[in-house]
Structures are given as C-alpha cells and as structure tokens.
C-alpha cells in the first residue's frame, strides 16, 4: 500500500516537472535533474537493498539513514538556491525602483 502511495506521489511530482518543462518554466538541466531524482527514488522503492549497498560504501550503516542525510543536504542546498534567487529578484526590484525614480525626477524637472 505504501509503495502505491509513494509511486502515485512520484507520478504526480514528475508530471509537474514535465508540465513546467513544456511551458518553459524550467530548463532542460532542471528537468533532467528532476527526472534523475525521481528515477532513483522509484528504483529505491522497488529495490530498497540497493540503498544499503550504497550506504555501506559511504560508511553509513543503513540505506534509510543515508537517504535521510542526503535529503537534509539537498533541502539545505535547495533553500540556499531559493535564497539566492529571491535575493536577486529583490535587487532587481531595487534597481528598477532607483532607475524609475531618477527618471521621474528628471521628467518633473523638465
């Protein structure tokens, strides 16, 4: 039952990635990243033992622990990426505000 729920979620999440790629909200690199990620997760759902083998090679006892650590690292990275993007948007808005305000002032003076 749990497997069915997880697969349904993956199909839903991957369909979102496909739609976003089709309407060009994301580029080919991001689309390939999500495709790779969900493929790996699907493989692990059907063959959980693979994660144990991978975990052991990194010196971590269980595959579930390795997945947990990896998730935290990925989440932090995603947060950092989001922060950088929001910061850039914020700077762009400031640049725009400064330029428009200076132009309006010049216009008023004429």
């Amino acid at each position, binding site marked *: 039952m749990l497997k069915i729920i997880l697969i349904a979620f993956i199909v839903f999440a991957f369909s979102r990635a496909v739609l976003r790629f089709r309407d060009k909200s994301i580029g080919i690199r991001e689309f390939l990243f999500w495709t790779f990620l969900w493929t790996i997760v699907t493989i692990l759902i059907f063959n959980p033992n693979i994660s144990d083998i991978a975990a052991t090679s990194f010196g971590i006892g269980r595959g579930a622990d390795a997945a947990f650590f990896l998730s935290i690292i990925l989440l932090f990275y995603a947060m950092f990426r989001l*922060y950088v993007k929001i910061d850039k948007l914020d700077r762009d808005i*400031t640049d725009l*505000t*400064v330029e428009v305000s*200076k132009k309006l002032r010049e216009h008023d003076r004429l």
Partner: protein
Amino acid sequence: MNTDSHNRNVWIVIPAYNEGAVIAGVIAQVRAAGYKNILVVDDGSADTTADKARKAGAEVLSLVINRGQGAALRTGIEYLRETEDPDIIVTFDADGQHRSEDIAALMLPIVEDRADVVLGSRFLEKNGTEIPLIRTLVLKAGILFTNIVSGVRLTDTHNGFRALGKKAIREIGITQRGMEHASEIIDCLSRKQLRYVEVPVHIEYSDYSLGKGQCSSAFIKIGAKVIVKKLID
C-alpha cells in the same frame, strides 16, 4: 563654514520614510546652518513627507515604492553624481537625531584633503550624547561585528551622519537596500582604499527618534544579512 565660503558644491542628502511630522523642522535647521542644497529622498512614504519637504525648501526625489534607507541613499547619491557633480555629500537623518552644527566639522577633513570619507561617531568623545543602555550595548556589539567583518577599526559603525568627498561619491556603490548599507559602506573603505576619519557628533535621542529608529533585534537581522551577502558574493 558653508557652501559658499569654500566654493564647493555641497549637498545634504536626507533619506526619509514617513517623517512628515518632523521633516520640515529638520530642513529648516539645515538651511539655517547655511546649507541650501538639500535633497530629500522620500522612500515611498505614505504620509506628507514629500510635500512638507518641498514646502520647506528642499529638492525632493521620491522612490515609487518603499525600498529602505540603503536604496534611498543610493538613489540620492547616484542622482546627484549624474546631475549635480557634487564635491561633498553629507548624509543626514530625517528624524531630527543629527545636529546641523556638526556638518562643518564633518566636512572639514574632506575640505582639507585629509579624507575621502568622514564618519560621525557618537562614541569618540564625551560630547553630551546620552545613549540609552540597551542601545549602547547593541551598538557596541554591532561595532565589534562590523570591525571584525570589514577589518576597519571604527568607534561607531551604524551612524547615518557622514560626509563623502568626490572620490567616495564616485567609488562607493550601495547595493544593500536596508540598514545593512552602513556596513557595506564601511566595507567599501578598505576595498576601495578610501581615506577615512571619524569625527565626534552629537546624537539627539528623543522618544520620536527612538520610536522611529531600529529596534535592537533588527541589528541581529542586519548582521545575518551582512554574513549571507558575503557568502553569496
């Protein structure tokens, strides 16, 4: 000392956000001290700040939306650099904390070609400034933090009262839109190899200015932003 006596193009830049209650008085004080070139950068105020500043005799540049003190200062400095070719820009708070009598002393090191940037300091010597204890502790922590991060030794790092000479006006680029711009300016001193000096200034704390000023917890936010900016850049 005034603009004419030294034949210099001096501009007083006052960033203002919802300062309608006091802005006219601040401008009158600056004008009475002999400075006629006053640019108020209205930071998208929702009140009558711009109208009152105009009526009080200042030039007004209004930001179309509120972006913070750093953005307002940046706009004022950029605008003057592009249109007026100023020799000296003095940044002055709109809430009545600063005294126009201190402007002359602040400009002097630039006039005498001893500095490119002059920073006002409320801690440099006993000058009658009574600073609330909590504010003192927070400011001292901020000073220590900024000194470590920027490598520039100063006695007061978040004082908006400063004078910029021609080189500084050309070289200093403010990218931080909030109060973090104060740390950014200090960072610029070492990066752009600007000559700087601190001058004692008096800060007039009132219920109004304390209410309008940064709450102490905001300094933690400023510190975090400075660190994150260094990581991103």
